[in-house]
């Protein structure tokens, strides 16, 4: 049994270096084919009729005109008469036609009669939520918060904080192409975060064996947690393909449906009361939170108060789920963390302001409450403060001098697990020296393809291009879905194991020719040689030629989620934001944002940095722009498009810097996932910076100009401090 470990720092030629993603050229030239781009022979275009009402019962459906239209090849009712529709956008009928315009005409020709039922779509103001829409959970009580709040030596702060519902808004909409090969076999080209998983979901829905579904996906245009399931449009696409004689049918959601039904992040609002001793020691937390995840719930109590909950003795929490007739929520990068982080770090920042303490000193003082990661946070806080020049630029809240543009600093801390998922990797070394790697994983743009390429090439001592990487097919060895920041640990680990085992087999074949034992050999720089006597060796090609006609194929297994020794979990991070707020217009401008993050062993520094920049930028978008707006009267989403559901552009993000904690104490942990942790803090860091700038809390994200002006008005007029 081989011993698996990562190469020492001085022996790494690829790992940890700044390497361009291997599929970069395919993406910049338009050659990368996404599901949305694939055209199969004889392919039909499918469209879905979505319900226009938030709450209704289907009374009747007349598809007769659509069925007779030239070019229409199949019409299928998805939710028939009698069905109760619980959100606008729910899928009613699917059609397949020879081209898109015909499919659209057919959708328009379908007549559906609905009985409208009462709907409820806006949960932000709890006072407006009717009793039958409140699903309260049990109260959680620890210690004696009331005694702490009544302590005369305490400072107590109360506030309300909230995160609006946002959507995933993947640029490649959800969807797929499905076709039948005979009666019982299906080929699917989906846009999915779970290559090895959703084929089985489809098979189950269709009543065929899982092995009969062949899934292929080379590229995916964004997922962010919203593409783990085959979805109703996936199974219905297969069914309508069958109705059309098995021809390939492509159904991709249009933009409106994508924003209405294909994924949201639940809202969380909270009324918070928090106390500290006059020296700044936090003593108690109380919160009553509420929010919506569509018709389902998303109780965040396990994460409140964020990070400090396990070590804070006195706390009382209650949460009320508010079911709304809106599109269902899906996992969104670091589920519940960004929301609970915003609520916690904003309340603590307000507490620091009431104590007249610099929040940096306040957080440093209370670091013990973060538990075992306190020293990591201390190092990260001090490094981030240096990067943003905190001590030079920070001022007490609201003391920003004259003039309408106010500058402020804010900070936040976050955590995430990111342990490896289970993963299998096949590596084949051919007698001609070429190497193949196969894995049923997916590259979401996170760099997975590049990472496994680096790990394999590093292990064999070969250049990147010597390893041919095949991913995105469910006939390759299974690997986990890309969620929870589990991918990099899982795929690096299974690849390293496969490569080490394959290399050891090669060493056994080569050792006699070098008059050495296999364990005395090393592969580096395109050669196989005796470690203690590098001149005694041969080229990689010569070594592989010793295999004769029999290639080596090895499966490497990262056996179970979280299992060591090649990857681990649990990271911390700190972000600080520097903003300017115009108190006349309410516009917030990002000056600079910094992130200090630990993530174990970095495989590719370039794509790792991109991950963190991307998370921060998405954080700027949800902090300042993104919000699903529902209309009370019609129950419709008013901004299911990209001009009023804004994501922010290249001019909105300001300067950004990323610093990783690496080296001893980090590298030996192996890689820890990075897709989620840095998405958590931006809301709180930016909200705290705005509060520092204008002297008052803007309670709810996104911090729109309207909300800034409303907060200033409440405080006493926007011109009060001019």
């Amino acid at each position, binding site marked *: 049994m081989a011993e698996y470990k990562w190469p020492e720092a001085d022996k790494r030629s690829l790992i940890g270096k700044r390497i*361009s*993603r291997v*599929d*970069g*050229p*395919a*993406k*910049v*030239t*338009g*050659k*990368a*084919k*996404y599901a*949305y*781009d694939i*055209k199969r022979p004889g392919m039909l275009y499918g469209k879905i009729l979505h319900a226009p009402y938030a709450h209704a019962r289907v009374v009747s459906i007349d598809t007769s005109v659509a069925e007779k239209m030239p070019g229409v090849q199949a019409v299928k009712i998805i939710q028939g008469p009698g069905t109760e529709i619980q959100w606008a956008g729910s899928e009613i009928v699917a059609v397949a036609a020879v*081209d*898109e*315009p015909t499919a659209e005409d057919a959708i328009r020709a379908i007549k559906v009669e609905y009985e409208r039922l009462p709907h409820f779509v806006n949960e932000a103001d709890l006072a407006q939520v009717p009793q039958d829409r409140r699903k309260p959970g049990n109260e959680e009580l620890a210690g004696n918060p009331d005694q702490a709040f009544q302590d005369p030596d305490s400072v107590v702060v109360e506030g309300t904080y909230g995160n609006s519902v946002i959507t995933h*808004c*993947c*640029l*490649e*909409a959800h969807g797929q192409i499905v076709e039948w090969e005979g009666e019982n076999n299906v080929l699917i080209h989906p846009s999915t975060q779970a290559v090895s998983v959703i084929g089985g979901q489809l098979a189950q829905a269709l009543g065929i064996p899982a092995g009969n579904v062949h899934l292929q996906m080379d*590229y*995916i*245009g*964004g997922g*962010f947690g919203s593409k783990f399931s085959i979805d109703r449009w996936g199974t219905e696409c297969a069914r309508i393909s069958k109705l059309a004689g098995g021809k390939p049918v492509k159904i991709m959601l*249009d*933009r409106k449906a994508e924003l209405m039904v294909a994924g949201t992040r639940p809202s969380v609002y909270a009324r918070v009361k928090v106390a500290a001793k006059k020296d700044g020691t936090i003593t108690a937390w109380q919160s009553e939170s509420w929010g919506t995840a569509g018709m389902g719930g998303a109780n965040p109590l396990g994460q409140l108060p964020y990070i400090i909950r396990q070590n804070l003795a006195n706390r009382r929490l209650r949460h009320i789920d508010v079911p709304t007739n809106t599109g269902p929520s899906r996992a969104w990068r670091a589920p519940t963390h960004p929301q609970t982080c915003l609520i916690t770090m904003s309340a603590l920042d307000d507490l620091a302001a009431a104590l007249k303490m610099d929040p940096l000193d306040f957080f440093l003082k209370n670091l013990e409450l973060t538990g075992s990661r306190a020293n990591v946070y201390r190092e990260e806080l001090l490094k981030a403060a240096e990067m943003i020049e905190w001590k030079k630029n920070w001022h007490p809240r609201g003391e920003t001098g004259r003039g309408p543009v106010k500058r402020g600093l804010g900070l936040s801390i976050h955590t995430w697990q990111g342990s490896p998922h289970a993963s299998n990797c096949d590596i084949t070394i051919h007698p001609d020296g070429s190497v193949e790697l196969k894995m049923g994983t997916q590259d*979401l*743009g*996170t760099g997975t393809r590049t990472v496994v390429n680096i790990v394999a090439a590093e292990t064999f001592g070969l250049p990147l291009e010597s390893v041919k990487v095949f991913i995105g097919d469910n006939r390759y060895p299974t690997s986990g879905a890309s969620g929870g920041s589990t991918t990099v640990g899982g795929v690096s680990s299974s690849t390293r194991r496969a490569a080490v085992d394959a290399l050891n087999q090669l060493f056994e074949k080569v050792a006699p020719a070098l008059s050495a034992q296999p364990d005395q050999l090393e592969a580096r720089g395109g050669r196989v040689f005796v470690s203690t006597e590098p001149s005694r060796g041969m080229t990689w090609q010569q070594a592989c030629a010793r295999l004769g006609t029999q290639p080596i194929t090895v499966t490497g297994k990262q056996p179970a989620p979280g299992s060591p020794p090649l990857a681990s979990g649990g990271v911390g991070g700190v972000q600080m934001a520097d903003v300017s707020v115009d108190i006349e217009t309410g516009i917030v401008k990002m000056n600079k944002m910094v992130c200090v993050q630990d993530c174990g062993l970095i495989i590719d520094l*370039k*794509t790792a*940095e*991109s*991950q963190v*920049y*991307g*998370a*921060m*930028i*998405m954080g700027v*978008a949800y902090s300042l722009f993104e919000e699903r707006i529902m209309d009370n009267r019609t129950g419709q989403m008013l901004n299911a*498009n*990209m*001009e009023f559901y804004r*994501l*922010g*552009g*290249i*001019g*909105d*993000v300001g300067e*950004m810097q990323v610093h990783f904690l690496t080296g001893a104490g980090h590298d030996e942990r192996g890689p820890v996932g990075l897709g989620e942790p840095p998405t958590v803090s931006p809301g709180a860091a930016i909200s705290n910076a705005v509060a520092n700038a204008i002297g008052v809390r803007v309670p709810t994200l996104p911090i729109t100009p309207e909300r800034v002006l409303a907060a200033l008005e409440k405080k006493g007029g926007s011109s009060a401090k001019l």
Partner: protein
Amino acid sequence: LPPVDSREVIFENGGKLMSSSEDKPGTPNSGVSRRSFLKGTGLVLSVPLVSGVRVVEVAGAQVKVLGPGKIPITLNINGAARTAQIEPRVTLLDTLRNELDLTGAKRVCDRGTCGACTVMVDGKTVYSCSMLAVEAQGKQITTVEGLEQNGQLHPVQQAFVDNDAQQCGFCTPGFVMACTAFLSKYPNPTPEQIARGVGGNTCRCGTYIGMKAAIAQAAQNLRGGRRNG
């Protein structure tokens, strides 16, 4: 992005109003009428059929009517003539993607907001989701597939790779086209010019930091005359 020079046009197919760029008189099969048509007194049918193409008189001018069925069109794309059979209501974007297998330009917002469908038409960036294929006839169309020369990435493409100005890559072709056109107009851009000039495109993964570095590298290489990286 400079706005498309738009004017309302009308097609018999559905009678829908759609935006359009400048029409060149005499273009074969052009279905574009004049803006004044909308302000005029309405439609007067003249000679019922002329060589298979219906013509209506609009404010004193003869205008051909296309559709409602599929018609043959010819597009000049990346220096080559390409033909397709499409309904006149089909956009340039959908023609590129569905008929010609040029899928670099993406359909994302489908209404001229996000820039994922950006191509160049006669040297100007255009949201190809907002231009009809019939209007693009007789013009020089460049898509992201046409930027490479002699198998070498364009300096903008190379800079996107070098600076990791992409993650999932779905917005990338549109950004590459927008940046290429932008840098040809602003070879030495300021951050403010970048914010405005490339602000008509949207990325969801958040690649703007890499993109700023890519624009700086590409600008330098293009100024140095290194057309091919």
